[in-house]
């Protein structure tokens, strides 16, 4: 078994007064892929926010350990330093994650240079090509509002991958894409994860995606992980009634 990269131990968290996460525990080893499946409002995104530490998610109990270091326990400044190079995010609304008024070249440059790396046009073009963007030079010269939702999603994926994070959080990473492209992007993420040994923590309401790529999955309902296990096991022999209902409701992704 590979070394554990992210350990979540009996995590309780709340958003304002309202408790959102109740007793969440799971581990992700280096290069492992963990998928959390649940309905909207089940607390999936809050979990990612707690790991990122950017929003006002209050950890009220338990711990989040990244390489053995407690994320909620460390000063903000230190936590922020982990973002990008160690922990990356593919956000739910990719178009919104870029400044709408500036050209993408400048924004990608800032992303790369913030990690202490040198910006190279060639690397950026390659990264854009790798996520299926035609004409990467032109994309680099345009502004986010000039591009479609699907293109923005690919750009967000490329931007998250450029600093080569060791843990990549995906918040409904394929929600803006059509089914065929979504499948392809999922495959691409999967092969990247394997080739670079990047761990993925994916959050989705789409069991098909989970089935296609994850090693382990967790089913989330009302802030609790009601069922966790290897993907095969959970999908073949779901213990919970809720999981069975979710499975029955999924349109098949071939």
């Amino acid at each position, binding site marked *: 078994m590979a070394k554990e990269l992210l350990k979540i131990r009996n995590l309780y968290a709340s958003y304002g007064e309202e408790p959102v996460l109740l007793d969440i525990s799971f581990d992700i080893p280096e290069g492992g892929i963990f998928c959390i499946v649940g309905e909207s409002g089940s607390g999936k995104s809050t979990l990612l926010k707690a790991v990122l530490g950017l929003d006002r998610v209050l950890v009220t109990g338990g711990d989040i350990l990244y390489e053995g270091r407690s994320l909620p326990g460390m000063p903000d400044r230190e936590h922020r330093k982990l973002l990008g190079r160690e922990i990356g995010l593919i956000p739910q609304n990719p178009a919104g994650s870029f400044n709408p008024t500036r050209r993408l070249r400048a924004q990608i440059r800032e992303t790369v240079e913030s990690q202490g790396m040198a910006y190279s046009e060639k690397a950026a073009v390659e990264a854009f090509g790798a996520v299926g963007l035609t*004409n990467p030079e032109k994309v680099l010269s345009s502004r986010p509002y000039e591009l479609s939702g699907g293109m923005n999603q690919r750009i967000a994926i490329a931007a998250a991958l450029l*600093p080569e994070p060791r843990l990549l959080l995906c918040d409904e990473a394929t929600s803006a894409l059509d089914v065929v492209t979504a499948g392809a992007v999922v495959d691409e993420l999967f092969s990247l994860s394997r080739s670079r040994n990047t761990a993925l923590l994916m959050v989705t309401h789409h069991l098909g995606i989970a089935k296609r790529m994850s090693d382990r999955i967790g089913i989330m309902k009302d802030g609790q992980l009601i069922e966790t296990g290897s993907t095969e096991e959970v999908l073949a022999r779901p213990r919970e009634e809720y999981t069975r209902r979710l499975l029955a409701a999924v349109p098949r992704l071939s």
Partner: protein
Amino acid sequence: MQIPMADDYTFFRHRRRDQYVINMMRRILLRIIQLIFILLILSFLVFLLMYLAPGDAAEKRLMSQGVAVTKEMLTAERERMGLLRPFFVRYGEWLFGVLRGDFGLSVKDDLPVAPKLLAGLKNTTALAGGSLLLTLLFAFPAGILSAVRQGGIPDHILRILSFAGNSMPNFLLSILLMYAFCVRIRLFPIIAEGGIEGLVLPSLSLAIPMASRFIRQIRAEILTELSAEYVRGMRARGVKERYILFGNVLRNASGHILTTIGLQVGTLMGGSVVVESIFRWPGIGKLVMDSITARDYPVIMGFVLVMGTIYVVINLLTDIAYRVLDPRTSTHA
């Protein structure tokens, strides 16, 4: 597996760069045409108002020469000043003169109006420039600081200062500054016509209230922009706060701030009358105040027209700058 390519056709949902420039040019041209109409209407209104205003320039003029005014003298003077001809003829003549840079003669002393306006304008521009410079030098760092350290000690101190500065009327501030720097500490002369040292106190009197307003606005704009979704996205990508603030937040906020600056410049050019009078700064505000008391209509008309033009042109420039800073406003022409 090969990832399907996003087809080139849906690539740029909006226009290409050359189209963007053409749109921009078209808008500017349209605005210039609008501007000409606005100024025409303004000139007509100014002339009409002065025509309807009570008081008789001829009488005023004769009285100022200290002679006993008879009816015959009055008629002759009116005739000489061209006051007896029809309204539209007089308006037309005045307008054509203005277009050639001839604003007529001052009623007070028979000197041409244009050089008077020009001299006043020069001094007022220096004053406006000085106070704007002081304002920006202070308000930008202060506004940024209080936004970034929202709720911190500097934020509270600046809040109180800007509240005080904002509620203090110009004339009071002028007198206080004068008392402090001319009477108690004799740093500046009370009256320094022209000259850099005479510019400092009036500039400060204008800059302090203006900077107080700007700090609040810059702070608010930056806070709004900091809560935008892209800031969160950039932080999640690990982009340094320095890049986020100076390269993106400030840049996006500058459009709105620039609009306010543009409006302020207009106000400064016309609205520094009180401060100019107190410090006896020979600007256009003082010129127009003197002209109003003397019923020197040609100067007043010239003033209104020049100010109107400045205001409209600054507005146009602000608009263009805004579009360049936020290209989204140009694509939906």
